[in-house]
C-alpha cells in the first residue's frame, strides 16, 4: 500500500520532482519559481563538494560569479548568441576549477573553507575594482541576447521552460554520478581519505573531478541567473553571500540530491517571505544556523528519510539507508 506507493515514487522520482516544481509555479509566481530552480542547481553543485565529498567551502559565490560574469561579458563583447555565451560561461567555470583545483583540493577542513573565501575575495576585488572598466564595477552591467529560434529569453515562459529542463538535466546528471562508483568514492573520501588511497584509487584525481564538476555547475547556475535577471552586479560574486548556499545545504540535509532540492526551495521561501516580517535578517539566519548545527543536523530531508525508514522497518522490508536517500 504505502510501501508500494513509495516504491513507485522512487522509480519515477524525476517525474515527481518535475511535477512538484511545475506546481510551485502557480503557487508562488513564475518569476520566483525560476529563481528557485536556478538556486537549486547551485545548491546541487555545492552539495557535491560539501555533502558528498565533505569539503566545506566558504567562497562558492566565486564560481557562481565567474559563470555570471563570463556570460554577461561574452554577451556584451563577443556576440548576442545566448548559447555561445552559456558555453563560454560553463567552460570558464571548468577552467577556474582546473586552475584553482590543484591548490584548493589538497586542503581539508578549515583551510579549504578559508582558501575558497580568500579566492572569492580576490575575484570580488577583480570584478569590483580591477576590471571595473569592463564589468561596470558596483553598478553592474545589463545583458541582452538575440532571439534564436524559439529561445527568446525576454519571454518569461521560455525562461521558465528552459531553466526547468536545465534543472531536470542537472538533477539527472548529479544523481547518476553520485550513484556510480565515483559517488561511492566521494563518500569514501569524506569518511576516510587514506583508506580510499589505500584501495589503490588516485584520490587527487577524484577530488579534482568533483571540484571541477562543482565549479562548472555553479558557473552554469550563475549564467542561468543572468538569463533570468538580464543584468549582473557584484552581488553575484559577493563572498558575504556564500553563507546562503551553506544554509540551504544544511537545512535541506547535506549529501543527498533530494535534500539539496528541499534545502534550495526552503531557503528561497524563507528569504523571499520572511524579511517582510523580520527586521534583523542576519541575526535570524545566524540563530537558525546554530539550531541546525546543534539540533537538526540531518536537515529536513534527513527527517523525512528517518520517518520513512521507521515506517518501513516494521513492515519487514528493510530498505538500505542509502537507497532511500541517494
Amino acid at each position, binding site marked *: 500500500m504505502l510501501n508500494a506507493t513509495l516504491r513507485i515514487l522512487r522509480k519515477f522520482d524525476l517525474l515527481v520532482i518535475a511535477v512538484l516544481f511545475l506546481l510551485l509555479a502557480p503557487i508562488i509566481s513564475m518569476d520566483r519559481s525560476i529563481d528557485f530552480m536556478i538556486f537549486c542547481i547551485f545548491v546541487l553543485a555545492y552539495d557535491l563538494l*560539501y555533502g558528498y565529498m*565533505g569539503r*566545506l567551502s*566558504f567562497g562558492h559565490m566565486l564560481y557562481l560569479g565567474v559563470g555570471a560574469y563570463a556570460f554577461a561579458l561574452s554577451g556584451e563583447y563577443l556576440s548576442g548568441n545566448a548559447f555561445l555565451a552559456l558555453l563560454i560561461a560553463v567552460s570558464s567555470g571548468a577552467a577556474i576549477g582546473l586552475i584553482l583545483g590543484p*591548490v584548493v583540493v*589538497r*586542503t*581539508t*577542513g*578549515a*583551510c579549504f*573553507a*578559508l*582558501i575558497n*573565501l*580568500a*579566492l572569492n*575575495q*580576490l575575484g570580488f*576585488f*577583480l570584478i569590483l*575594482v*580591477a576590471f571595473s572598466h569592463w564589468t561596470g564595477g558596483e553598478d553592474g552591467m545589463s545583458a541582452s541576447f538575440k532571439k534564436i529560434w524559439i529561445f527568446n529569453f525576454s519571454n518569461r515562459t521560455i525562461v521558465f521552460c528552459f531553466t526547468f529542463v536545465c534543472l531536470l538535466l542537472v538533477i539527472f546528471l548529479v544523481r547518476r554520478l553520485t550513484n556510480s562508483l565515483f559517488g561511492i568514492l566521494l563518500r569514501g573520501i569524506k569518511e576516510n581519505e587514506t583508506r580510499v588511497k589505500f584501495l589503490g584509487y588516485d584520490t587527487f584525481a577524484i577530488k579534482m573531478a568533483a571540484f571541477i564538476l562543482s565549479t562548472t555547475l555553479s558557473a552554469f547556475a550563475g549564467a542561468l541567473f543572468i538569463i533570468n535577471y538580464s543584468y549582473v552586479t557584484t552581488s553575484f560574486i559577493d563572498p*558575504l553571500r556564500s*553563507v546562503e548556499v*551553506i544554509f540551504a545545504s*544544511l537545512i535541506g540535509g547535506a549529501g543527498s540530491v533530494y535534500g539539496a532540492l528541499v534545502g534550495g526551495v526552503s531557503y528561497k521561501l524563507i528569504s523571499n517571505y520572511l524579511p517582510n516580517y523580520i527586521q*534583523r*535578517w*542576519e*541575526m535570524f*539566519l*545566524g*540563530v537558525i*544556523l*546554530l539550531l541546525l*548545527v*546543534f539540533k537538526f*543536523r540531518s536537515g529536513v530531508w534527513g527527517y523525512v528519510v528517518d520517518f520513512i525508514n521507521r515506517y518501513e522497518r516494521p513492515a519487514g522490508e528493510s530498505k538500505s539507508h542509502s537507497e532511500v536517500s541517494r
Partner: protein
Amino acid sequence: MISTLAYGLTVGGILYIISIGLSLTFGTMRIVNFAHALVYTLGAYILVTAMQVLGVGFFVSAIIAVTAVIPLSYLIERFVIRTLYGQSIDYAIIATYAVLLIGVDAIKWIWGAIPIPLSDPVGASFPLLGVELPIYRFIIILISLLIFAGLELFFGRTVVGKIIVAGLEDKEALASLGINVDKYFAVAFTLGSSLAALGGVLYAPITAVNPYMGFQVLLICFAVVVVGGLGSIRGTFLAAFALGMVMSITGRFWGPAADTMVFVVLGLVLIIKPIEA
C-alpha cells in the same frame, strides 16, 4: 618611502596581535574561529562607547574594551566551540560563522551601520628623516613587540604556556599525560580573543569603526597564519610583518589592491608549499 615603511610596520604589528588568537585556535583545534572577527569588532565598538559615554581617555577605554570581551569569548569557547569540537570541524566552523552573523547584526542594531571615525588619540607626530610620522603608530609597533616578548616568555617559561605549545604539537599525547587539555585551550582561546579585541582597539583610530571591519581583517589574518605556518607562533610574527609590508607597499602604488595582494601572496605560498592537512 619612510612613511610607507612605518605604515607597513604598524599594520604588521596589528595583524600580529590579531593573528595570535587565530593561530592558537587553528593550531590546537584546526578550527577557523569566525567569532574572532566579532570579538575584534566588538573591542573597537566598546572603545568608542567607553570614550563617548564615560568620557574617559583612550587608554582607559582600551583597557575596558579588552576586559569586556573576555567573558564573551569564554562563553563562545564553552558553549559553541567546545560542544562541537571532536564531533565535526565543519559544524564548528559554521557555528562560529553563525555567531559572527548574530554578533554583527546585534552591533548594527545597537550602534547602527554608519562608520564611526575616531581621531588619533596621541595627536602628536614625530619627524623622522624629514617625514612627519604620528607617534601613535610607533606606540602600536612598540606594543606589538612587547606582546611578542611577553608571549615568548609565556610560552617558553610558564607551565601553562608550555602546555599550550605542547598541545599545538600533539593533543592526544598531552591528554594521555593526564592533563585537562580543554581547560588550557580555554585559556589560550580567551588570551587570543582578548588580543583580538586589543587589535581592534588599536586599529580603530587608523580606520573608521564599522560593523563589517572584522570580515576583511579575519581573511588577512588567516593569510598570516597560513603563510607563517599552521600553529607556529614565531612564524605568525614574521608573516604578520611581512604581509603588513606587502599591504603598505601595494597600497602606496594602487590603494584598492592592498588587501588583495595579501591573498596573491597566500596563493603563491600555497603553490610552493601546499598544506596537506
